[in-house]
């Protein structure tokens, strides 16, 4: 498919007898703001774990920027340009906020140890964490922790950023704050996949949305089309 940055073909993932993903196929275009939604347990996080490399799919192919990455370990995918934030923040607890960014800068962002500091400071300033640069993550609030997740993903200099429920549990003003950051990153040319339960945020952010339910792809369309889709309504609310 022309212009597709990420192509997922017939992805299958089973955990024992449970099929978490059943032949899921989807494409994300370069520069797109892509929303991935679905009820709890529908396979969203499993899908992006397969894309980022934390999980190996049982069947299917993943192609990124024209290259088959299905068998690639996670750290190499990051170097190719896939970065993610974690639903439950996973900071490096023994390091300061700034040092947390040095790791992806040095290992994936192609920065030498010497200029990593300046780049980290710049990213922290852009995301509004510069005042906390020398704190340990344990001293951060919830929203600051989410911002650190995003900042760390940005430090990997990604082409594709996967934001896994970066807004869960945040206040409405904080949601706007994170949304603004994601809009700005997209403006800089980064393709973004947003996984979110906060409908107000996904609907506003996404240009196109795919809906998963019980490991199957049940709908795809613009936010308007998704809202009016009876299958989606059924998946969320039941009959």
């Amino acid at each position, binding site marked *: 498919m022309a212009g597709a940055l990420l192509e997922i073909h017939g992805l299958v993932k089973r955990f024992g007898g449970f099929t978490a993903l059943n032949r899921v196929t989807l494409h994300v275009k370069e520069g797109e703001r892509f929303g991935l939604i679905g009820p709890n347990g529908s396979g969203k996080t499993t899908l992006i774990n397969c894309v*980022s*490399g*934390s999980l190996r799919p049982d069947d299917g192919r993943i192609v990124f920027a024209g290259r088959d990455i299905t068998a690639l*370990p*996670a*750290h*190499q995918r*990051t*170097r190719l340009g896939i*970065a*993610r934030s*974690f639903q439950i923040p*996973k*900071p*490096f*607890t*023994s*390091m300061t906020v700034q*040092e947390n960014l*040095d*790791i*992806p800068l*040095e*290992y*994936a*962002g192609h920065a030498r*140890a010497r200029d990593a500091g300046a780049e980290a400071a710049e990213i922290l300033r852009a995301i509004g964490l510069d005042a906390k640069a020398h704190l340990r993550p344990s001293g951060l609030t919830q929203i600051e922790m989410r911002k650190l997740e995003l900042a*760390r993903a940005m*430090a*990997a200099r990604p082409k594709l950023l996967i934001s896994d429920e970066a807004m869960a549990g945040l206040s409405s003003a904080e949601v706007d704050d994170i949304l603004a950051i994601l809009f700005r990153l997209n403006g800089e040319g980064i393709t973004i996949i947003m996984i979110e339960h906060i409908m107000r945020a996904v609907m506003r952010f996404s240009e196109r949305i795919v809906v998963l339910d019980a490991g199957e792809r049940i709908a795809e369309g613009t936010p308007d089309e998704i809202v009016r889709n009876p299958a989606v309504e059924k998946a969320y609310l039941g009959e």
Partner: protein
Amino acid sequence: MTPRSGLAWLAGLGVVGAGIALAGLRVNPYVYFAGYVILQYVVIATAWNILGGYAGYVNFGTPAFFAMGAYTAVFLIQSLRAPLPVLILAGGLVAALLGLGIGYLTLRLRGVFFSIATLALSVVLQTMIINWEYVGGSRGLSVIRPSGPPFGSYVTFLFTVMVGLAVLSVMVARFIERSWIGRGLAALRDNEEAAECMGVPTLRLKLFATTISGFLLGVAGAPFPYYVTFVEPNSAFALDYAVNALAMPMIGGTTSWAGPVIGAVLLGTAQQLATVTISSEMNLFIVGVVLVAFVVLAPEGILGLVRRLRGR
């Protein structure tokens, strides 16, 4: 080379020089005898800390690696009467291979399960050695030191060799700690999944850590046959190594190369003093009490304590 690492090399050379000078002093031979053990623990604690402290994988199988070094040496003495440098290198390499092997275990085993596997490894290897007659089996084997050491008595010579090995291992640990490898290991210690997703090749770094750690533990064990002149499985696979290797870095502080050195010197000296003045059984008792005290009162070791007193 940065000025700081130049200074470190100079300090290292200074320590080696001081060691040689001390060996030339011909003070009470017991000083060298005890000093050897303390220095051997500097090597062991430093080697353990590369995996346990930097990467966060707690190895209970230190005796296995130490004994691999010692028994490789015994084998080479028996078969070829190989010279000491060859023994040290070969002992290190065999233990490094063992390290590489347990590195692959980290693919499936993390946390306490990894530790249990390393403990089991020690038991398995000890059983194999007990049943291998050529290296003495369960009865043990007397080793005759080569006649005419390069200088002094053989014990002062071994003492000097151990000074060199201690400096070498501390240098290696310090280099790792300050390089991209050390930063990557710290990241995977904090959160392995996040590290991998941030571009850190976690498997490769873990294999590196287990191999280097194994190598240095084997190196520490290789001169052991010449030091004790009688090698038997119970002393080569002694529980003391497992406990001390873990306790010394914990007491000194695991995040920096200085921690294991401080821990080994303090605990090692205390153990030697207790052996002479009270009884050799007091050894592990002291370690146990001190370790419990530190885990409860100063979990980040002496280095952490100093940092806290300085107000960070």
